[in-house]
């Protein structure tokens, strides 16, 4: 809430400056007929637009990094699980398989509960990264990279992996991970 108040203060200050600039330009505009938006304001707005769009790209990059971290962690857990299965260490295998399931769930939800809280805050502030995609039903609210369809498949995989935890088999685990890998690769393709 404090952060938002700070943001509001910046906007309020900007608005005051803009009003001052508008009125300083008003007499000239009145003499010339219909007022044009002062070029200084257009330039400022244009610079602001660059910053907004850059921030949006940064947001997408950050979410991709979150996904990459979860995926990399998943690869490690998969290897651990397969080693443990091979060694007959059921307890270690179970822990690794559950960690893998959690990683895949985090791929589905673009991060863990703490990220969900950040996303909720952004939505509360009116920020929808993929507003057009949301309107078309392609993305869940606030999601940046993971589409609804990909989310659902990843959730299915996380459940399937989780259910293997009690008696995991290396080949079944590997097969499920291949599905995750394919979805992940599709999501991480550079945007056209």
């Amino acid at each position, binding site marked *: 809430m404090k952060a938002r108040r700070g943001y509001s203060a910046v906007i309020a200050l900007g608005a005051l400056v803009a009003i001052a600039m508008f009125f300083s330009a008003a007499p000239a505009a009145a003499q010339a007929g219909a007022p044009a938006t002062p070029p200084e304001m257009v330039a400022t707005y244009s610079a602001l637009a660059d910053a907004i769009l850059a921030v949006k790209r940064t947001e997408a990059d950050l979410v991709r990094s979150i996904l990459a971290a979860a995926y990399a962690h998943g690869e490690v857990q998969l290897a651990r699980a397969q080693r443990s299965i091979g060694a007959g260490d059921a307890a270690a295998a179970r822990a690794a398989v559950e960690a893998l399931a959690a990683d895949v*769930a985090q791929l589905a939800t673009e991060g863990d509960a703490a990220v969900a809280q950040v996303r909720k805050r952004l939505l*509360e502030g009116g920020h929808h990264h993929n507003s057009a995609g949301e309107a078309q039903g392609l993305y869940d609210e606030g999601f940046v990279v993971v589409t609804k369809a990909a989310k659902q498949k990843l959730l299915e995989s996380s459940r399937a992996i*989780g259910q293997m935890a009690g008696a995991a088999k290396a080949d079944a685990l590997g097969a499920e991970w291949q599905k995750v890998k394919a979805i992940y690769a599709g999501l991480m393709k550079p945007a056209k």
Partner: protein
Amino acid sequence: MRARWQGAGAAGAVMGLLAVAALHHTTAHPGAAGPAFRFIDVAPDAGLTRVLLAGRPAKDHLLDSAGAGAAWLDFDRDGRLDLFLPNGWLLDGARIVERGRYALYRGLPDGTFRDVTDEAGVQGDGRWGSGAFVADYDGDGWPDIFVTTFGRNLLYRNLGNGRFEEVAARVGLESPGWNTGASFFDADGDGDLDLYVASYIDCTLESVLEAKPSLSWRGLEQVAFGPFGMKGAPDHFFRFEGGRYVDATSEAGLDDRALGFGFAVRTADIDDDGDLDIYVANDSDANYLYRNEGRGTFKEVGTWSGCALDGNGAAQAGMGVAMGDATGDGVWDIFVTNFSEDFSTLYRGLGRGAFEDASRELGVGQPTYRPLSWGTAFADLDNDGDLDIVIANGHIYPQVDRHPDVVGTYAQRNLLLENLGPGKAPMFRDATAEAGPGFEQVRSSRGVAAGDYDNDGDLDLLVTHTDQPPSLLRNDTAGGSWLTVVCEGPRGEINPIGTRVTVRVGDRTQWRDIASGDSYMSTHDPRPHFGLGAATKVDEVDVRWPDGTHSVRRDVEARQFLRIRKGS
């Protein structure tokens, strides 16, 4: 778990088949001769007249719409259920008109209740009450009452002489905030009761009093703002140590990192590993399943366990929760009620703590789609041996009444979904229309607490509403046989939380657990109740006490309250 279904031999199998057949032909089903259920509201005649206040008529703030729960308990240990109701406030704009008095009703032998609130000393201290949860927290044999509030919580310690003393501050449970659902349970296996408390929105009383409807609802009306756009308040976990409750949220791994809008809490041994796990239904956020990792530490596993989101991968607006073996396959199922224009979700248990959304397949999706649902219970309301579902409904915006064609009205009809038994597709059907005058009521309902208040062997329903007295829906269904088990600790303390009771009739096994905190901010009758269909005897009753020991009774007559004391 499926091993429980295996017969002991051919004779056992035949007897079992007969018993199962009897269980499922006791009561009428759709297309049969008559209605299976009959419920009648007897609250006014029984003396349950306390109006439960709920803010302002226009529900300017979400707190005005949240309502309150209810709790069944036997505070005087006379064998009859008593009833506790927390209460809210009446507001007029920013003015506090009335701070609602809570109510403790003592159950009388004739099925009526006497208001003993004042003599018991549980008026509520003028605090805006939310939920009511019953547990013998101090192990003295007398059930105590914990009340979550908007503000500082209350803990009424039962003195055993008809009076209570309020000790929340003394024991460390005031925890100011908008507290909602809660559940007492032994998290660390040390023999005493710890406590999880959910919280909803981080807001002040000033913001509540100043609130005006400011959210555009479909461009038609201005309604109460939130919860979206408001900050969630963190849930808390309190460990019982040396006679006090100590906040051990972080230490136990229960930090509410998503700051979910928490409403309902239920604890149970969901993965059947001998310790108690925590399920939290969140409004507009993913639900939590905190798996007990032993020694009182937890890990949140809801998403990959399949009970955090719906089958489409979406977070829903969780309000109330019911848990039990509704599908009759021996494992826990979870039912979560949700907002209107979204179905309530039945997560079918797959064993070992895994779930799948089976709402549509099992027939609960369609009837629950339109209403806005709150309190709920899995309860065998026709005593036919399976768990039916009751759901309390009511919208949060009175303004919808000006557009009834859009999502219905603020006051709504409650639902009764009949379980048709394993193998039926769909398993549940909407039996509301045939459930008697009690289910014809149209109110803005919130809490549901199931309990056999008249000790006649069937489960009755206490339903709270906003700005009205509660309904007590007496169950007059011509149902089947039954058994109710009253569990006593070694010193005669009743209904130890975490106890699981299993009954077997032939090949058919049913089980219930004893919990504190369920439904929507409510507590059901703590005595495990079983419908038995046409069976006249129960082959075996097995009580698994919280410490893992068992008490077993064999060849038990049906239609009785069976008392079993630990160690006997």
